[in-house]
Each structure stands twice: as C-alpha cells, then as structure tokens.
C-alpha cells in the first residue's frame, strides 16, 4: 500500500506548553486512522497541523511524498486536497446549505455555478439531504448540520478527510446518522483520519488506532491489538477507564 500522509517528528508548542512531541506516523492510502486519547492529548491539534491551520514548530508533514510543511508554502492548494470537518460543524450561518457547499468549488476551483450546484445536489441526495438544499444551517438538527458539513468538505473532492470529533456535540440518537456517513466514506476508499471519543466505532471501523497522551503516540496498531492487548501502561489505564465507564 502506498503512503498517503507521512508525519515525521512533528512538534508543536503553544508558548511554553508542548502540545505535540515529535509525532511520527505513516497513513496508508485508503486507510482509516483513528486518534483516541484523553482531552488535551493533542488529537485536534494534530489534525489542524495536517490541514496547515496551525504551523508546526519542528518536523515535516508529507502528502504523497511532498513536504507540505515547508515554511512559507502556499497552504491553499494543499487544503483543497485535505478536507476537514469540525466538532461544531462551523457551517456558514448566512448561507443556505447549497451555498455553503458550492462556495469553495466555485471560488477556488473555478467550477461554473450551475455545474457546482448539480454536483452538490448529487452529494446531498447521496446523504439523504436533498430536501434541505435551500434551508439555512440554523434550521437543521445537529446531525443534519454535521452531514452538510461533511458534504461541504467532500465537494472539493479531497483526497484525505480529517474528522475532528465530529460526533462530540451531537445528541446520542443523532450520532448514528453521522457515523453511517463515515462508514460510507470508508467504503468508497477515501483516506480518513479521525479524532473521536466513540470507542466502539473506532474499534469496528479503523484500520489503525493511535492512542495519544500528552502529545505522544503511546500505542499504535490495528484496533484488535490496541483495544485488547495494549503494550504501554498508560494506554492500559486509559482503555480501562473507558471500559469502566461503559463506553466500550
């Protein structure tokens, strides 16, 4: 399998606080990599760094073997290849669903408006949202908003999709509809990197699970191994606390 994204000794600090301690990780094309770990362990920061929303202090990030973390590199073309979905949806409230979706294709890729709308409608239909095309974000449920946010990210046809705790602000009964979408994306062969607290989903869907703690990857491997036989003591503690709280 070819490597899609490669992190090499990636470090990130906020002032004196070190958020990421030399993270090294290879992500194969078409694989689903899940980042789990306690709050503040660096999962979201890692995703934001891959999307170049945060500049890294040390190390390199490669996309298809090309260093995308070179200081001063134009980030916009890179971001069009790496989509991102956020915990709080971050839809643009002053635009209708369809306008949210076609904004980037028409403005950054130069797709004609009619064509972009047509493609957006196809995506909306695929995710059972076609009747919401002209609604505004505030008129939708959380689950619908998050599915629209995924469609918006897909509209620029990214090669990789980063999902940052996309079910964390949803009611329990709405989590399922969003996770179904992620399963469909996996089936379509897209490379997915997700930070999540949904342990059952991580176990069933991931190819690789990484456990983060204080900016280190303390455990890494297929879910069967990470969830049943973690090697490090810290990872054992973390997973035990999850099992005890009934989340796995």
């Amino acid at each position: 399998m070819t490597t899609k994204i490669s992190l090499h000794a990636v470090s990130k600090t906020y002032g004196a606080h070190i958020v990421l301690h030399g993270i090294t990780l290879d992500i194969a094309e078409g694989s689903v990599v899940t980042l789990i770990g306690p709050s503040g362990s660096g999962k979201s920061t890692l995703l934001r760094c891959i999307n170049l929303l945060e500049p890294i202090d040390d190390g390199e990030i490669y996309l298809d073997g090309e260093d995308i973390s070179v200081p001063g590199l134009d980030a916009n073309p890179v971001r069009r290849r790496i989509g991102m979905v956020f915990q709080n949806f971050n839809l643009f409230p002053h635009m209708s669903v369809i306008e949210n979706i076609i904004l980037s294709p028409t403005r950054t890729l130069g797709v004609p408006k009619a064509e972009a709308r047509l493609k957006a409608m196809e995506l909306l239909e695929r995710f059972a949202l076609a009747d919401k095309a002209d609604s505004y974000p505030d008129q939708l449920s959380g689950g619908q908003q998050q599915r629209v946010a995924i469609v918006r990210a897909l509209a620029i046809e990214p090669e990789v999709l980063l999902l940052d705790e996309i079910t964390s602000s949803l009611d329990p009964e709405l989590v399922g509809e969003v996770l179904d979408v992620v399963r469909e994306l996996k089936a379509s062969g897209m490379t997915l990197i997700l930070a999540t607290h949904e342990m059952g989903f991580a176990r069933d869907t991931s190819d690789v699970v990484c456990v983060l703690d204080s900016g280190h990857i303390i455990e890494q491997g297929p879910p069967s191994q990470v969830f049943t036989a973690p090697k490090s003591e810290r990872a054992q503690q973390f997973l035990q606390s999850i099992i005890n709280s009934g989340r796995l």
Partner: protein
Amino acid sequence: MVTTTSRRAVYEQKRKRRSIAVATVSSLIVVTAIVLLVPRMPRWDRVRQSFFNGERFRDSFPRLLDAFILDVKIFAWSAPLILILAMMIAMARNSRSPALFPVRALTIAYTDIMRGVPIILWIYLIGFGVPGLGLDRPWNSPLLWGSVALVLTYASYVAEVFRAGIESVHESQRAAARSLGLSNWQTMRFVVIPQAVRRVVPPLMNDLVSLQKDVALVSLIGPIEILRQAGIEKAKFANFTPYIGAAVIFLSITIPLTRTTDYMMERERRRTTGTRVR
C-alpha cells in the same frame, strides 16, 4: 394548526387584548396631561407664537425643503465614501500579517485622532484650512472640504463599528473557510464580512442617522443648507417656527430610515433562524 378555540389561543387572545388596553390607557393619560398642563404654563402663549406659528410654518417650509436638498446631497455622496473608507480601515486593523504592522499602527492612530476631536472642529480645520492653501476653483469649495471632513471623521467611528463586527465572527468560521482552501482575502470577503455587516446593521444605522443630522454642521463654514436656511427664516420675523419645520423635515427622513432597517433585519432573522424563545 392551532384552532382558535384552543386553550392556548384563548389565553393569547386575552393577553393581547389586555396589553392593548394597557398601552391605550397609559398613552391617553400622558397625552391628556400634556395637552391640559402645558397650556397652563405662564408663558405658553408666547412660546406658541414663536415656535408653533402656522403662518410662518407654511411660509418658510418650501424654502426649507429646497435647502434640505443640499443636506440630502451631502449625505448621499458622503455615506458611501464613509462606508468604503471605514471598511478599509477596519480590515487593515484586523489584518494579521506581521508585515502589515505599520498599517495597523497607522489605522489605530487615525481612529484615535479623528474620534478624539469634535467633528465641528475638523469641519473648521479642514473646511477653512485646505481652501486656505490657495487652491483654485472648484477645489477651494467649502462644500467639498466640509464633506471631506465629515467623511474622514465618520469613517473613524464607522470603522470601529465594523471592527467590532469582524471580531465578533468566531475564529472557527475562519478555520472552516481556510480548511476549504479559501484564501485569507476570500475568507474575509465571503465568510467574515457578510456576517460582520449583518451583526452591526443597528449601530451602523445609528451612525447614519447621526450623519444625516451632522450634515447640518457643514453650514457653519458657508453652504446654505436647511439649518442655515432655518436661521435665515428665523431672523426675518424673529420667529423660531422654521426650526420646528426643519425638525419635521429631518424626522421625515430619519424615522422611515430606521423603521425600514428594523423591518429588513427582522425579515433576515426570520429567514435564517429556526424557532425563537419567547
């Protein structure tokens, strides 16, 4: 669909009738009090003569209206320039590139200085000062430089309104836009500014209504607009009624302006949001 006889509808009906009754009665009391009490004041007759003289009103009103056209003109060319300049200042001040630090410092100095001095002083300084440099017609017109003074001062106030609006748009909106590959400029243009402007429409209208009135200050350096015309009319018969006429004309512009904005805001809110807490 709620039927008119439902418990809820009956309650709403009752409540509505009650509040209308309360509003009507209290308004009536206030109006009656004014109508009964004010004329009992010792010099009411003289005040009525010099402020509410029907004849003077009818006589001066057409000329006031004519003079008001100049106010409208000054407003019409100043307001768009103010909005454009203010937006440029606000965006410069919100820029993030370290290279633009001098620009940011300059905009801060600009807003501090322009807002720190009374508008009337700027109108004098610019309106008399610049033509004093010996410029030729039409570049020595006090009307031109008075308008420039209005634009420069008002832009600093409006820039602060825009800046507050831009800063009120949550960082996560920018993150979402950038993650979609939009450039910094496109993020401002399509995501941040539209939301910022919608949020500041009420304070913005506030400033525009003030501008509509402050246009009259330009008269102090020469141009005969409504306030000055009212002064001329007043001087003719030593009667203040023309000022009431001027006030009526101002209100006939500012009230519809504010009502329309409120209506547009309400329509926009209804279009983009879900249910509302009552």
